[in-house]
Structure formats: structure tokens, C-alpha cells
């Protein structure tokens, strides 16, 4: 993921690719931080996230720009302002939420859509989940997930454009996070398996899911360290491995529902 090269005056520090295609890269231009989303926009910001500018690429689709602005752009600026945003989707039921994290293509949006298709379940966020961490005087309090999006963006087979799915119920206010589930595929399995991650495994899974803009700033790393500890102390971090087979999606949703209803103690 890390890349360092000089392109004009911009020093590129990191990039994100999906199926080999560059979808985002971040870097520095003097004191300014920049993020490029090829074909859509360029974001520029000062180091505190107080002066920001989103420059659309001529001809960029309004839908793509709106999605970017509500999601990644908001996450990156939030990072500079001291907030934590996960690359994840989130759903809720009975005032408790679950976040589905994982690499691109791990099925975060698919799980959220399938979960929200069941009666009473709500969508909290897709692609980016903004968290409010516990205060220091209540270190074991769960983090809160902040609703951000109204739709889930689903990829149809191998097609590049995603389609928007609007669940019947959307969460309107912050909700306690009962767990962060790191999704991955394992075709050796016949059914989904849920496992609680501990120690460094939990820490790494969480650290990998955080969206960052400032990646070369020791003070930001230090602040983030405390935030990750606060999140991991406040809610369980789990791993769900499952076969890449939509026929078992219902079972995966069932496991997630049980996790929300009973907690992670039995996992």
C-alpha cells in the first residue's frame, strides 16, 4: 500500500488500488495535504483540516462526487481534525450496531445490504463509518457509530459502476457499536465462521481499517494509538471468514444478528 514517489511538486506517500487500478492516493505538496481520486476529484487541505478544497475533475459524475464528498472526503478531513473513520459499512438493530470492515471486495456493502433487507434492521453507513470514541473517564464505554449514508453501493458481478440500494430503514442518530467484524473470504470453508480477535490480531485488524490522511506525522500516530486502544477496549473485534458463495450470505447475516443480540461472549 505504501508508495513514495515524486510527481511534480507532490510527494505521494500512499495509494489504494482495487484490482490493480489506482482509485486513490494521498501525498504532500509542501505543507498542504493532497488526495487524488482519479477521474473524480482532487482534495487539498491544510494539516488541521480547517481549510479544505475539493476540486472536481471536468466531466466527473455528480453521483460519484456526492458519494466521495459524503464518504472518503469527509473521512480524510475528519482524520486531520482528530476523528476516527473506518473503511467499513455499519448496520443497527435494537439500538446496537455492528461495523463490517475488511479489504476492498471483502463484501462489506453486501453484508450491510443483506442485513438491512431483514425487517427492523437499519443502515448506519456504507464504505466509511465515523466513530466517536469513549471519554477517558469511561474507558470501557463502546464507541458510537455516526450515521452517514442513506444507500449501500453494490458491485454487480464484474461491472465497474456500482448500483445504489436504499434500505427501508436508515439510522437517524448515533448508536453504540457492539462489535467490529473484519470480513474475509475463505473458499476452504463450507459455512461462515466467526472468531473473536485478541491482542495484536485485534489491534492490527482495527489499525488496518482506519482511513488516514496524515500518514507521516508522529503526533497523529500517537493520538491514533490511544484512539485504537479506546475503541478496542470498548467493543469486541471479530473476524468472519466465509466462502465466496452468495448461498451462504443468509448464514453470515444470521451470525451477525446473533452477535448483536447475544454479544461476543460466546464467540
Amino acid at each position: 500500500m505504501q508508495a513514495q514517489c515524486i510527481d511534480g511538486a507532490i510527494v505521494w506517500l500512499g495509494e489504494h488500488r482495487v484490482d490493480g487500478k489506482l482509485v486513490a492516493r494521498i501525498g504532500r505538496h509542501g505543507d498542504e495535504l493532497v488526495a487524488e481520486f482519479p477521474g473524480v476529484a482532487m482534495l487539498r487541505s491544510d494539516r488541521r483540516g480547517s481549510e479544505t478544497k475539493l476540486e472536481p475533475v471536468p466531466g466527473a459524475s455528480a453521483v460519484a462526487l456526492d458519494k466521495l464528498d459524503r464518504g472518503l472526503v469527509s473521512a480524510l478531513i475528519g482524520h486531520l481534525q482528530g476523528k476516527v473513520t473506518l473503511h467499513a459499512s455499519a448496520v443497527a438493530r435494537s439500538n446496537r450496531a455492528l461495523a463490517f470492515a475488511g479489504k476492498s471486495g471483502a463484501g462489506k456493502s453486501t453484508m450491510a445490504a443483506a442485513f438491512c433487507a431483514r425487517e427492523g434492521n437499519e443502515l448506519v453507513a456504507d464504505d466509511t463509518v465515523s466513530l466517536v470514541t469513549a471519554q477517558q473517564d469511561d474507558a470501557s464505554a463502546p464507541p458510537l457509530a455516526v450515521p452517514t449514508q442513506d444507500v449501500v453501493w453494490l458491485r454487480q458481478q464484474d461491472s465497474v459502476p456500482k448500483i445504489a440500494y436504499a434500505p427501508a430503514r436508515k439510522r437517524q442518530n448515533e448508536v453504540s457499536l457492539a462489535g467490529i467484524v473484519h470480513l474475509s473470504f475463505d473458499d476452504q470453508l463450507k459455512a461462515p465462521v466467526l472468531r473473536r480477535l485478541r491482542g495484536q490480531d485485534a489491534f492490527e485488524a482495527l489499525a488496518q481499517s482506519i482511513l488516514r490522511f496524515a500518514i507521516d506525522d508522529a503526533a497523529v500516530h500517537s493520538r491514533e494509538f490511544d484512539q485504537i486502544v479506546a475503541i478496542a477496549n470498548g467493543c469486541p473485534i471479530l473476524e468472519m471468514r466465509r466462502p465466496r458463495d452468495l448461498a451462504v450470505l443468509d448464514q453470515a447475516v444470521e451470525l451477525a444478528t446473533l452477535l448483536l443480540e447475544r454479544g461476543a461472549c460466546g464467540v
Partner: protein
Amino acid sequence: MSNRRALGAEVRVRAADQVATRQFDEETILLDLRGGNYFGLDETAGAIWERLNRGMSPQEIADQLVGTYEVERDVLLQDIVRFVDDLLDRELVTELSG
């Protein structure tokens, strides 16, 4: 491959300035603030890390911990020296002079 000289059992080290430490789930997590890389130490490694930062040498730590683990003192000492060597290679600790 490191070019450093081989370490003795009496070397003393301390956490490097750019390393932050937190406890989580009975593990010690180290953060290298330069690159934002995390390192997890299990309970045993965490106990050794804590003693290293109190200024104890591998030899002194082996003497103190030998009764805690089912392992011969020489084997434990070798493991501690190797651990310190690894920490130095990753620049997570600095050697104390004198």
C-alpha cells in the same frame, strides 16, 4: 542483515524516543511513531520489555525470570539476547552507554 557487533548478556537498553507503548488485552503494543508501525509483545516478551526499560540487562532478567517459566536459564538468556538484538535491529530500543 545487521552490521552491529554481537550483543553481550550484559547490554542495557531503553525504549527509543520514537516508540510509544500501551497495554491491550494482556499484551504490550509498541508503536514506532516514525512510520506508524505496530508491534505486539505477548505476556512473556512484555515482561522482558518492562524489565529492559527498568535498566536491567538480559543476564539480570534471566536470573529473575528463570523460576517463572519452565526453561533452563541458558536457553532463556539466549532468547532474551536474541529478543534485544531484534529490538535493536528494528530501532525500537537504543543501547545505553557505560
